[in-house]
């Protein structure tokens, strides 16, 4: 039985629950549309108009246009869908990881290698 809304706090981590899913729906729906090459091209042609078509709010639009992943997460984005937006700009997971942790890509990659030792 659910008796209250106590959430686990894990530093640097957001669990994509109902609250976040509600908040981020428009942004995630836009990202989901990028499965289609035609939609990816349409985004590149006029990013702001594309965001408007999917009803992004100002916070989501600003975050998407800036490609700042932490801002997109704060606006309700989900990593699996955001990856499709990142893909349009050729960002790989080490670019995205480096950006979010404030590290250089080389330092981020070294950190991953270190985790395997």
């Amino acid at each position: 039985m659910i008796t209250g809304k106590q959430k686990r706090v894990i530093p640097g981590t957001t669990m994509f629950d109902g609250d976040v899913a509600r908040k981020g729906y428009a942004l995630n729906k836009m990202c989901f549309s990028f499965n289609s090459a035609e939609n990816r091209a349409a985004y590149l042609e006029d990013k702001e108009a594309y965001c408007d078509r999917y009803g992004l709010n100002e916070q989501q639009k600003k975050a998407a246009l800036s490609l700042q992943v932490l801002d997109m997460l704060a606006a309700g984005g989900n990593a699996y869908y955001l990856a499709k937006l990142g893909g349009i700009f050729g960002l790989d997971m080490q670019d995205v990881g480096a950006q979010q942790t404030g590290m250089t890509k080389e330092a981020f990659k070294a950190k991953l290698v270190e985790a395997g030792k």
Partner: protein
Amino acid sequence: MAKIVGGINVTHVPYIGRAIANKLQQDPYWKPFFDGFPPVRQWLAKVKPDIAVVIYNDHGLNFFLDKMPTFAIGAAAEYNNADEGWGIPTLPPYQGDVDLSWHMIDSLIEEEFDMVTCQEMLVDHAFTIPLELFWPGQHPCPVRTVPICVNTVQFPLPKPARCFKFGQAIGRAIESWDSDARVVVIGTGGLSHQLDGQRAGFINKEFDLMFMEKLISDPLWVTRYSIPDLVELTGTQGVELINWLTARGALLGEVAKVHANYHVPISNTASGLLCMEAV
């Protein structure tokens, strides 16, 4: 009755698809990962499965947040892969087994696992990459398939204890099918990784290795954890290891390790491979 020949759990990082397309198997970065597979392929050649039941999670190819099933099963004669948006090659269609799908649907719902049933279903890298690793370059894939999709996207996710029971029900469904087919159960995803947030790049080798060991000897150990526990211990996407647990449940009873491999990192992920058979 159908026979479960064993199970294989494996990581499904999308960039593996690109590495295969670019023939990077012997590249120093990729070699420790790809070198894990020949013993598994030898085992598959020995046990000769006809069908693979593949337990995986969709990443926004077939399912979106408009309709997000906790447990879904394919019931199609054929499953297509499609463009996922970030440029890994699209693979040819996979043959389904509609008879087994519907038998499993009947059996699972009888056991109170109320499946979402899909007569059309796109399968993403989490389904295609493992098959590409086990049967490299074989198009069409030499086994028929039944995809089972577990929600790892939108919380709440199914609890580990529930996933294990779900896996057991999958095992009983397969073994009660009136057929002489040989079935391999595949679980995909994990191991520890986190793509999002300031904790991006989180990997927990100690937990992963313990998890792989316990999956053989004491899978109920994993079911003591909650989903938030697993997120804390393995990362927001590391929680995909519930697919491994589900596949292990389907093996019903004691298993022995056929082969295992573990290598960090592949992209941002701790890669794992664990092949098991009944003892």
